[in-house]
C-alpha cells in the first residue's frame, strides 16, 4: 500500500503529469465554456428554434433566410463601413501621436496619460451615454458649432448620413492602446540606423519614410489585425447610443445578431448569424495575412 502510494506520488511529480495537471483548468474551461456551447450553437444554426419551442432540424434554412434578408446585408455593409473607416483612422492617429510623444520631455508622462485616458474608459456605459448627450440636438457639439455661427442645430444621431460618424469618431477617439504599442516599437529601433541615415544626408522626413515606417510595418500589421477584429465586433457603444437607428444606418452586425436572438427570439437564426460572423472574421484575418508579405518587413534591424 505504502509503495503504491509512493508510485502515484512519483507519477504525479513527472514533468508531463505536472504539465497536464497545471493546465487542467484551461482544458476544462475550454471544453466546457467554449467547445460545448459552440457545438450546441452549430447544431442550432441548422434548426428552427425560438427558445420556447424545441429545436427542429431545418437544414440550410437559416442561411438561406440570411441571403434573402435585406436587413442582413444592410448590417454587413454598415459593419464593413465602420471597420474600414474607423480602423485605418485610428491607426494613423495612433502612429502620429506615438511619433510626437516619442520625443521625451518632462511632460511626456502627462501627455501620454491624456491621450490614453479615453481608451481606458471608452468601452464603458458611462462614455456611451455621455456620447449620446454630446451629439444630441441640444448637446454640446451643436452648441459649440452654433457658437461658431452655425444657424440650425444638426440632428447628428437622427440623420442616416451622420449617425454612423458619431460612432466612428468615438472609435477613433480611443486610439490609445495602438499608440502605446507603436511607442514601444519605436523605442526598439536602434539609434544607429538614424545616425547612418543622417550621414547619408537623409532629412527627418526621409528618415521617417525610409527607416521608421518600414521597421514599423510588422507592428502596424499586428495592430491592424487586432483592431480589425475589434472593429467588426463593436457592440456596446452602438447598442446604447443608436440601437441601429436611424433606418438601420448604424445597425452593426452584432446588434442585429443580438436583436434577432434576444429580442425577436429567433435563436436558431441568431446562432447561424454568429457562425457567419466567425467566418467573415476568419476570412478578413486570412486576407490580411495573405497580403502580409507584400508590405510587411520582417527582417532584423
Amino acid at each position, binding site marked *: 500500500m505504502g509503495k503504491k502510494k509512493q508510485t502515484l506520488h512519483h507519477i504525479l*511529480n513527472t*514533468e*508531463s503529469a*505536472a*504539465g*497536464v*495537471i497545471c*493546465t487542467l483548468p*484551461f482544458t*476544462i*474551461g475550454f471544453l466546457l*465554456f*467554449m467547445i460545448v*456551447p459552440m457545438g*450546441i*450553437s452549430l447544431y*442550432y444554426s441548422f434548426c428552427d428554434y425560438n427558445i420556447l419551442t424545441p429545436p427542429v432540424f431545418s437544414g440550410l434554412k437559416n442561411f438561406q433566410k440570411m441571403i434573402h434578408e435585406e436587413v442582413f446585408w444592410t448590417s454587413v455593409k454598415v459593419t464593413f463601413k465602420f471597420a474600414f473607416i474607423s480602423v485605418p483612422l485610428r491607426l494613423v492617429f495612433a502612429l502620429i*501621436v506615438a511619433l*510626437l510623444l516619442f520625443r521625451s520631455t518632462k511632460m511626456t508622462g502627462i*501627455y501620454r496619460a*491624456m491621450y490614453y*485616458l*479615453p*481608451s*481606458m*474608459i471608452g*468601452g*464603458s*456605459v*458611462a*462614455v456611451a*451615454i*455621455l456620447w449620446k448627450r454630446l451629439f444630441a440636438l441640444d*448637446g*454640446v457639439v451643436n*452648441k*459649440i458649432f452654433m*457658437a461658431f455661427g452655425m444657424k440650425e442645430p444638426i440632428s447628428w444621431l437622427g440623420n442616416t448620413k451622420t449617425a454612423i460618424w458619431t460612432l466612428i469618431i468615438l472609435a477613433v*477617439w480611443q486610439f*490609445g*492602446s495602438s499608440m*502605446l*504599442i507603436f511607442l*514601444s516599437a519605436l523605442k526598439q529601433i536602434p539609434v544607429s540606423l538614424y545616425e547612418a541615415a543622417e550621414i547619408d544626408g537623409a532629412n527627418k522626413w526621409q528618415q521617417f519614410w525610409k527607416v521608421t515606417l518600414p521597421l514599423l510595418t510588422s507592428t502596424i500589421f*499586428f495592430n491592424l489585425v*487586432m483592431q480589425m*477584429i*475589434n472593429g467588426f*465586433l463593436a*457592440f*456596446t457603444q452602438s447598442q446604447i447610443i443608436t440601437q441601429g437607428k436611424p433606418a438601420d444606418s448604424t445597425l452593426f452586425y*452584432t446588434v442585429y*445578431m443580438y436583436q434577432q436572438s434576444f429580442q425577436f427570439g429567433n*435563436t436558431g437564426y441568431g*446562432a447561424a448569424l*454568429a457562425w457567419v*460572423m*466567425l467566418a467573415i*472574421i476568419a476570412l478578413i*484575418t486570412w486576407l490580411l495575412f495573405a497580403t502580409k508579405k507584400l508590405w510587411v518587413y520582417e527582417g532584423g534591424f
Partner: protein
Amino acid sequence: MHKKRKIGNIIYHVLVLAFGLVMIYPLVWMVMSSFKETTTIFTTATKLIPDKFVLSNYSTGWKGFAKTSFAVFFKNSLFISIAATIGTVLSSAIVAYGFSRCRFKGRGLLFAAMLATMMLPAQVLMIPQYLWYQKLGWVNTYFPLIVPYWFAIQGFFVYLMKNFIDGIPRELDEAAKIDGCSYYTIFTRVIFPLVKPAMITGLIFSFMWRWDDYLGPLLYVNSTNMYPSSLALKMFADPSSSSDYGAMFAMATISILPAMIIFFTLQRYLVEGISTSGLKG
C-alpha cells in the same frame, strides 16, 4: 540656432497639449456637468466651470431607480469584478506555469487553443454560451459572470503570465528541485511569488474589463437588485426611467472612478502590460 530650437519646443508643447485637451474635453465636460444644477447643464453646455457648484446630483442619483440605490449596483459590480478577477489571475498563473515549464503530450494543441481564445471574441460566443448557461440553469445568477473566469479562459492573461514566467531563470527551479520541491511546490514557493508584477498587470486589466462589462450582465442578469453599475447606468439613462441629466452624469462619473484611480496610481503596470503583450486595453 538656439533660439529657433526653443521656439520649436514651445510650438511642440502647445500643439501636443492643445490636442491632448481636446482629447479629454468630453470627459472633463461630463465631470464638470455633474456638479452643475441639472437644469442648467445644457443651457450652459459651452461653459466648462459650473456657475454654482452643487452636489445635489450625486444625492439624487445615488437613490437609483426601482427602489434600488446605486450603492447596491456598485456593490454588485465590485463583487462580480473582484470574484472574476481573482479567479482569472490565479487560474491563469497556474496554467501559464504549466505551459512555460512542462513539456507534455498535447501541449502544442492546447497552446494553440489558448491563443485561439484571444482571437475568439465574446460577441461571437454570446448566443452559444447563453443557450448553454440556460441549460445549466445559470440565467439570472452571477455564475456566468464569474465561474468561467476561474478556468483561465481568457488567453490574454495566460499569455501575459507565460511570457513573464519564461523570463524567470530555470536555475531557480533546479535549485528548488534539489532542495526537495515537487513541480507543484516550485510553483507555490518559487514562481508564484516572483510572478507578482505580471499578476498586478493582470489584476488591473481583468478588473477594468469586468467592471465595464455590459454584454454579460445584459444577457444574464434580469432582476434589478442584481444589476451591476454598467447595466444600471444604461437603465438609468433610458428616457423612460429618468431625464435628470445631472444625476445621470454624476453616477456615470462615479462609475468611471475606479478606472481613473487605477489609471493614475498603476499607470506603469498598464503601459507595460499593453506594450509587452500588445493587446487592447
